[in-house]
């Protein structure tokens, strides 16, 4: 469904991505992990069109998307959430989700509203419908971003550290919600996360980035025991 090949990106003298390749199959949940500064969020920004890669290609459902603007990529079916949440703070929760529906051009106002209301309900935000998005709690803002992303009827969702800053109970709630969403909408999910417990138990495959390179790719168990991964996180054992 998504094929990333040989993506390179440098900011001035700092090369953040040094030729990354991987593929995503439809319907899977793929984890993307790596130490801080590995290039995970940069990769997300390239996939969603915010940044342009210096070289390399991104194929989504057979067509190149790495030269498209963010809104065009969204319309083709890739939606995302942000590590540091970006809801429309001065707009109500309902309006936030309504904006997400605009990537589908032909739709009556009523069906947009009912769709947005249904999504708010699904994510447990129905009571906050008319509250300004800047006034709700962090987990609610994260849920709202998810609702906004789902409103564009994506086939692939990019989740950028959706569990960061949540307490253990909220983490459980959020992971259950993500699993529920995958079942209900059949979306594919690419998921950056630092919380190993959550990512190990909830993904079909994990891709590990380190210093702008893919160092491992496989089932959660294989990745967790991969020597290069352990070294990337803990350092070389000979020095331990």
């Amino acid at each position, binding site marked *: 469904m998504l094929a990333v090949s040989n993506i390179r990106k440098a900011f001035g003298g700092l090369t953040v991505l040094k030729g990354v390749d991987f593929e995503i199959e439809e319907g899977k949940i793929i984890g993307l992990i790596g130490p801080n500064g590995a290039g995970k969020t940069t990769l997300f920004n390239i996939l969603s069109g*915010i940044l342009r890669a210096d070289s390399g290609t991104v194929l989504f459902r057979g067509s190149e998307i790495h030269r498209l603007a*963010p*809104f065009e990529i969204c*319309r083709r079916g890739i939606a995302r959430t942000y590590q540091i949440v*970006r809801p429309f703070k001065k707009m109500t929760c309902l309006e936030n989700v309504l*904006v997400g529906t*605009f990537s589908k051009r032909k739709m009556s106002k009523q069906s947009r509203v009912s769709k947005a209301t249904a999504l708010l309900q699904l994510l447990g935000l129905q009571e906050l419908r008319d509250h300004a998005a800047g006034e709700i709690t962090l987990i609610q803002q994260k849920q709202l971003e998810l609702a*906004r992303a789902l409103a*564009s009827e994506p086939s692939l969702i990019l989740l950028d550290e959706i569990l960061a800053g949540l307490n253990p109970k909220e983490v459980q709630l959020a992971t259950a919600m993500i699993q529920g969403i995958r079942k209900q909408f059949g979306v594919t999910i690419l998921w950056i996360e630092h919380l190993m417990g959550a990512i190990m138990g909830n993904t079909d495959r994990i891709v590990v980035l380190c210093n702008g390179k893919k160092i491992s790719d496989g089932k959660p168990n294989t990745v967790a025991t991969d020597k290069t991964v352990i070294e990337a996180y803990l350092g070389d054992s000979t020095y331990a």
Partner: protein
Amino acid sequence: MWRQVLSILFVILLALCAPICLDQYWLHVAIISLYYILLSSSWNLIAGYTGLVSFAHAGFAALGAYSSGLLTLYLGLSPISGICIGTCFAGLAGLTLGGITLRLGGIYLSLTTLGFSEILRIIITNEEKWTRGTMGLQVPGLFSTYSKSSYYYAFLFIAIVVLILTWRLVHSNLGLCFRAVMDDELAANTSGVPTNQVRLIAFTGSSAIAGLAGALYGHYLMLITPDIGSLGQMFLILAMTMVGGLGTILGPVVGAIFLQVLSEKIRVYGEYHLLVFGLVTLVIVLFAPQGLMGLLKRRKA
């Protein structure tokens, strides 16, 4: 909801009766207020709803006024068609300027629009052969027989139409996109909103309304000067919108009437009137950052 509709209808009714109650002088003030209502409402559309701070608005008004004036004068067009073409010219200029500068955003947009407006003013001032420069261009009036009340009704009609259209626009899907772009451009873009197009639509529409206001104004005064497009006028529009309440439909209306009437009232103080004017504006912006409409809302809450 019904109470709001009723009170708005009441205000419109009052406005319709104005020519009966006001003398010629205050009727003139009312017409000028309506002109500023048009300008500040259209500026509010881009500044208050899409977050684009443009300084070319008075410039677009001058463009509308001069295109209509020159067309009626040299080509013998009727003022009505002159006004229509002037509006289109301003819209086209907005489209072109916006297409070039809107990507810049923020302070750069403000600076380039400021530059555009000054260049336009200087061109108008210097092309004396055509525009008669600072002497002013005498243009035909909108009506064959001069009557302040007909001008008043013409301005009132257009102002009401523009306000209703603005209201509808702001509450439409496109209006929601405007606010999303203002709130968080990047998030709007990745949510499927073509942010540059949305901004360009707002900028073009708003410039066209400014051109319409300027063209009407020219045919009312029957003498247009480069002063229409001066920065002083621009800051007046800005002050009216801020004082009334940025990002509200009625804010610019309240602000325009308030500041226009105030400046007439304190005109007697001669040179000091600008000082008083500045102080009043400063106090309102300091103590009611949401403007007069914000004060009203706070009292209700």
